[in-house]
C-alpha cells in the first residue's frame, strides 16, 4: 500500500474518519511508545496500517525511522525531525513542521499541510516530500535523491551541496540557491534572490518538462502550476571538486 497516486493523498480526512484507524495519543503514551509501536510493524506486519497521532504539542522525533507501508496522519504542529529516515510510509503532517522534517528520508511520502522550518528534507536519499506552505532556510540541503515539491517559497541556502534528486518550488527562492551543487535539479517558478557559488540557470528541454509534469502531479500541485512556468538551475561544474587535476585528492 505504498501511496504514490494523488487520490488518497488529496483527501486527508478520508484516511482517519473511518473504522480501523489506530489513534495514538502522544501526550498520554509518550514518544518512545509511539516510535517503538511503529517500528514493530516492520517485523510483525498488521492490518492496522492507518494511524493517526494526536496531542502532539510540537514534540520532537515523531514517527522517526518508520520502515513499513503505513499511512500515518500527525495532527498538529511538530518539533524537530518528524518523519526522519522514513522508509515506505506515507506520513501527513496536518499542521506545520519543525526543523529537519523528513531528514534523510529513504522512500515513501511525507506531506506537510502547513509550513516547514529549516533544513526540510536534508540529506534525503529517496521518496517524496511535499510542503504545501513555505519552507524556511536550507530546504533540501545535501539532498541525495529525494524529490521535494514546495507549493510556497523557500528560504536562503536551499539545496546547498545537493547531490541528486529534484527540488521544485512554486514560489520564490531566497539567497544563495544551490551553492556548491552537484547533480541535483532545481526548478523554481518565481524569483531567485541570488544563486550560490557554481549554480547557474540551465535550459528547460523537453525531458525537463516531462519530469516536472510528473513531479507536479505527484507533488499534488498539478492544478497550481504548469511546467513551462519554471526555470531550471543546476551545477556549472566549475568548482575545485569538478576539476580532473584534483581527482587524486578524493
Amino acid at each position, binding site marked *: 500500500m505504498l501511496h504514490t497516486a494523488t487520490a488518497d493523498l488529496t483527501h486527508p480526512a478520508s484516511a482517519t474518519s473511518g473504522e480501523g484507524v489506530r489513534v495514538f495519543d502522544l501526550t498520554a503514551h509518550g514518544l518512545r511508545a509511539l516510535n517503538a509501536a511503529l517500528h514493530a510493524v516492520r517485523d510483525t506486519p498488521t492490518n492496522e496500517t492507518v494511524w493517526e497521532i494526536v496531542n502532539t504539542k*510540537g514534540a520532537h522525533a515523531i514517527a522517526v525511522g518508520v520502515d513499513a507501508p503505513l499511512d500515518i496522519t500527525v495532527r498538529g*504542529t511538530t*518539533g*524537530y525531525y518528524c518523519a526522519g529516515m522514513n522508509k515506505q510510509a506515507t506520513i501527513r503532517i496536518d499542521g506545520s513542521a519543525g526543523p529537519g522534517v523528513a531528514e534523510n528520508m529513504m522512500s515513501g511520502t511525507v506531506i506537510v499541510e502547513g*509550513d516547514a*522550518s*529549516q533544513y526540510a528534507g536534508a540529506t534525503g536519499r529517496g521518496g517524496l516530500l511535499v510542503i504545501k506552505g513555505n519552507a*524556511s*532556510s536550507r530546504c533540501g540541503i545535501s539532498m541525495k535523491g529525494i524529490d521535494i515539491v514546495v507549493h510556497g517559497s523557500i528560504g536562503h541556502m536551499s539545496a546547498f551541496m545537493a547531490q541528486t534528486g529534484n527540488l521544485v518550488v512554486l514560489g520564490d527562492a531566497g539567497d544563495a540557491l544551490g551553492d556548491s551543487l552537484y547533480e541535483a535539479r532545481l526548478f523554481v517558478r518565481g524569483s531567485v534572490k541570488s544563486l550560490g557559488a557554481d549554480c547557474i540557470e540551465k535550459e528547460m528541454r523537453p525531458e525537463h518538462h516531462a519530469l516536472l509534469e510528473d513531479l507536479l502531479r505527484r507533488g499534488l500541485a498539478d492544478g497550481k502550476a504548469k511546467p513551462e512556468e519554471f526555470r531550471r538551475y543546476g551545477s556549472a561544474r566549475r568548482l575545485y571538486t569538478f576539476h580532473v587535476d584534483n581527482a587524486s585528492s578524493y
Partner: protein
Amino acid sequence: MCGIVGLFLKDPKLEPHLGEMLADMLITMTDRGPDSAGIAIYGRPHEGRAKLTVQSSDPEADFEHLARDLREEIGGKVSLEAKDTHAVIEVEGDRLQAARDVVRTLRPGLKLMSAGEGIEIYKEVGLPKDVAARFEIARMSGTHGIGHTRMATESAVTTAGAHPFSTGPDQCLVHNGSLSNHNAVRRELRRAGMTFETENDTEVAAAFLSHKMDDGAGLGEAMEATLTDLDGFFTFVVGTRNGFGVVRDPIACKPAVMAETDQYVAFGSEYRAMVGLPGIESARVWEPEPATVYFWER
C-alpha cells in the same frame, strides 16, 4: 543551544497570568539549556516610583536593614521585598540613579540585576523549574516578559553569566548564539562610557543596544544596528519599558518561532514552548525572517 521565550500582552485581562504563562514556556525549553535560567518581568509601574532588583550570595546578611540604610542615604520612601537570593527595592522615581550608585557601597556583595520603573530580573544557576519556583515567577503579573534557559558557551556558568542582561533602565536582552567580535565592541563601548559586569558576549549586545538608545535611537533603529555592527550567531529578544523586539542574524541558524493573536505576541525557540498559550491553535504562527527586525510597542 539555549532556549528563549517571550510574551508581550495586548489584552490586559491576561496580565495577572503573565508569570504563570512565561514560567510554563521556560520550563518547556529546559532541554535546550539546563545550566541556568532567568526571567525579566515588566509589571505595571507604580506612579512616581522605581525599583532595583539586586542579587546576593548572602541574602540574609545583605538584605537585613538594607531599606533603612538606603533611606538614610537617599531619602524618600524605600521598601524592600526579598525573594530567595534576590530583592526588589522600591524607591522614589527621581532617586533611582542615586539608589543605584549607593546600593553597592552599602553592600559590596550585591549584584545589580535591573533598574527601572517596571522591570524585575531574576536569574540563577539551576534548572528553569527550580529557578521559577524559587522566585515564585508563576505568581507574578505584568505586561510583558522574557525568559532564557542557558547552555553556556562563551563564559562561565554563574549567576552573572545567566540571561537576561540589563544594561540600561527598563532594558533587557536575551540571546541564543555566540558573538565573535564582542571584545572589540566592548572596547569601543567602554571608551564611550559604558560599564560591564562580566566577560560575557551577550552583555556586549545588551550594552550596544542601550548605548544606541541613549543616543536617541528608537528600539527598532537600535536593533537594526546589530545587523551591521555585531558579528556572529544570534537570535536576540529585547524588552524595553513599553516594547518587545526580535532580530535574527542573516544566517539565522538559531531557531525562532513567533505567534500572534489579538491577545498577545509570543516568541519561542521552538513551537512547543507556546502550545499552552490560550488560542494558540488559531494564532498566526511564523518564523521571523533572517536579518529582519520585528518590534511591538504600546
